[in-house]
């Protein structure tokens, strides 16, 4: 029962955080001279006529608190605003641009968890072997490289040569799974590796360290003495204990994940939410940015709650805290 209480607390806190972010974003953007705001809302290419239209439509001349109430009201009804620059509502844009981001994020997480866990476990159980030393070096390299460098490197070294030899399976840009799984994978493979690389390095190191510490604990020695097979010892006892810091690290990494996604989308031209938002900065397209900020914080909060829930089910002590 304690876990339900814990969950409720987290959801409440999460809701407050999202509300705080939305409020801060609102005041950050809207608490400025009306013309500036209007111009940014209308987009760089707007004519004075459009700007006036914007002022009228969005009631920018009203007192700020009234605008705030409208804003909150719209949010609760799922209305994120209208992008004058591209002449479509933000909701539509979100629906269009979410799939690439989602494919990227989900695929990358799975990839880095698998790689991180596998390499980490093998390194820990074969400490100081050649495999371990090599993976240590690779991990260090992975940790030191910014995501965009890895992306560009992969393009330079994989995409360009392949392209020059006529192999077009690996491609930049995005193509959804509905248009053919193989094509989708071909577009997503390099982006997945790019986003996963740094994180895999972090997790490999984390798991290796935790597992090494755990395996030298006395209760592991007891398990071996009992005659359990090595595999059982490692997985049942060792990995279980080593997983908790991994899960907590996951929570912190949600933020990094989003940041990385934006970069990878930019490098590979995937046209997802991240890339669109960055472009919006240069188009002075404020509604898109606001929508993205709110969505991002919502995602972070939800993901954190899920992670916390996972953590609480792994480690019973947390529920009492």
């Amino acid at each position, binding site marked *: 029962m304690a876990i339900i209480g814990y969950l409720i607390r987290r959801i409440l806190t999460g809701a407050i955080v999202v509300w705080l972010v939305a409020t801060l974003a609102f005041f950050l953007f809207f608490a400025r001279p009306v013309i500036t705001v209007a111009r940014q809302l209308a987009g760089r290419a707007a004519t004075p006529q459009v700007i006036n239209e914007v002022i009228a439509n969005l009631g920018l001349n009203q007192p700020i608190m009234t605008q705030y109430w409208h804003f909150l009201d719209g949010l609760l009804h799922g209305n994120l605003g209208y992008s004058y620059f591209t002449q479509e509502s933000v909701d539509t844009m979100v629906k269009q641009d979410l799939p690439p981001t989602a494919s990227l994020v989900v695929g990358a997480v799975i990839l880095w968890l698998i790689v991180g866990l596998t390499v980490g476990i093998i390194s820990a159980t074969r400490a100081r072997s050649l495999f371990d030393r090599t993976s240590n070096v690779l991990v260090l390299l992975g940790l030191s490289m910014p995501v965009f460098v890895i992306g560009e490197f992969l393009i330079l070294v994989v995409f360009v040569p392949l392209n020059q030899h006529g192999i077009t399976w690996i491609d930049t840009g995005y193509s959804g799974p509905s248009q053919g799984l193989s094509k989708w994978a071909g577009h997503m493979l390099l982006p997945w590796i790019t986003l996963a690389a740094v994180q895999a390095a972090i997790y490999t190191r984390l798991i290796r360290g935790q597992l090494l510490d755990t395996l030298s604990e006395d209760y592991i020695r007891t398990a071996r003495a009992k005659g359990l097979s090595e595999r059982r010892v490692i997985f049942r006892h060792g990995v279980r204990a080593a997983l908790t810091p991994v899960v907590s690290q996951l*929570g912190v990494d949600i933020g990094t994940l989003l940041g990385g996604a934006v970069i990878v989308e930019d490098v590979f031209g995937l046209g997802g939410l991240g890339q669109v938002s960055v472009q919006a900065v240069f188009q002075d397209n404020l509604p898109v940015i606001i929508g993205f900020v709110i969505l991002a914080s919502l995602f972070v909060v939800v993901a954190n709650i899920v992670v916390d829930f996972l953590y609480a089910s792994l480690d019973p002590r947390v529920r009492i805290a």
Partner: protein
Amino acid sequence: MSITEVQFEAREAADGQSIANIEGRSQWQLTWRRLRSDKVSMIALAVIIIMVLLAITAPVFASITHHPPDAAFPNTGENAVGLPVGPFTNGFWLGSDGTGRDLFIRILYGARISLFVGVVTTFIAACLGVSIGLMAGYFGGIVDTLLARLTDAVLAFPYVVLAIALAAVFGPSLTIIMVLITFFSWAGIARIVRGQTLSIKEKEYIEAARSIGAGPFRIMFFDILPNLMAPVLVVATLYIPAAVVFESTLSFLSLGIQPPTPSWGNILAEATNFYQTSWWYVVFPALALLITTLGFNLLGDGIRDAMDPRTERILAARRMRRAKNRRRRAAGAHTGPTKDFPDPPRQSQLPLA
């Protein structure tokens, strides 16, 4: 985590006094000695120093080559079809970039920005993080809960999103980046400091200080802080490359340093258009970035291992094993690793390489 190890046996003379002329070594001296014997860390340190020197002397190089960082040289800097020239052509040491500017000089000036941002933001973040972490850990209660929540919130928040938002409102600039990076760095440091403070606070010598009448700030500054410097130093050394990467990422996305001011990030952004024709445009800035971050990471790991007294035993054991192997090899025996039962040491006992 007592790291004051003395590397000698204090012999007691007949009247119970230690021999007066042996001076004890402080924690820092011991750490430095261990660090000095770690080749990898020394190389990393050397690399960093070279990088810093190059950055400082960038104007000197600019005048030697007669290529200021922002100046374009369309005649010498571009080939017949308007593409960049390669390394060692026409007086461009590492080649030129898309508009005919000297790549090497631009990389050097980019180093100035990156190193400046990296060090300054980490320093400010460390000061902030230590103060806040100390107070949260020492005072506990509401202060701690609030600060802990705040720290968690900052740590979980995606920085890119905030960067986008701020850039949209204020326009990209160096100040914004530095504020942003500092804002996200202090939280990690504060969290570590808070944890350490919580455990140090329970030690008896803190109670002793209170019994003398020392106030909270005195205790925090004179008693707790010296015990924190070790982990803070390690964390700071590891945060510098993170800040450098942060800055270059933002510049890459054009949310940071704007051209024509060179930053490794925006050079690499420009380079994306030329990767098929001018490999040097991508490789050299990337290498500079990589070497710098790798250097700081290795140094940070090295410092962390040097501060751990357990490393001493591992190094000693290693020396003994090497000597033993030498003897055995001379006698003709096999000296490879034996594989009957894996004996995993603690992760922190394995310094890199």
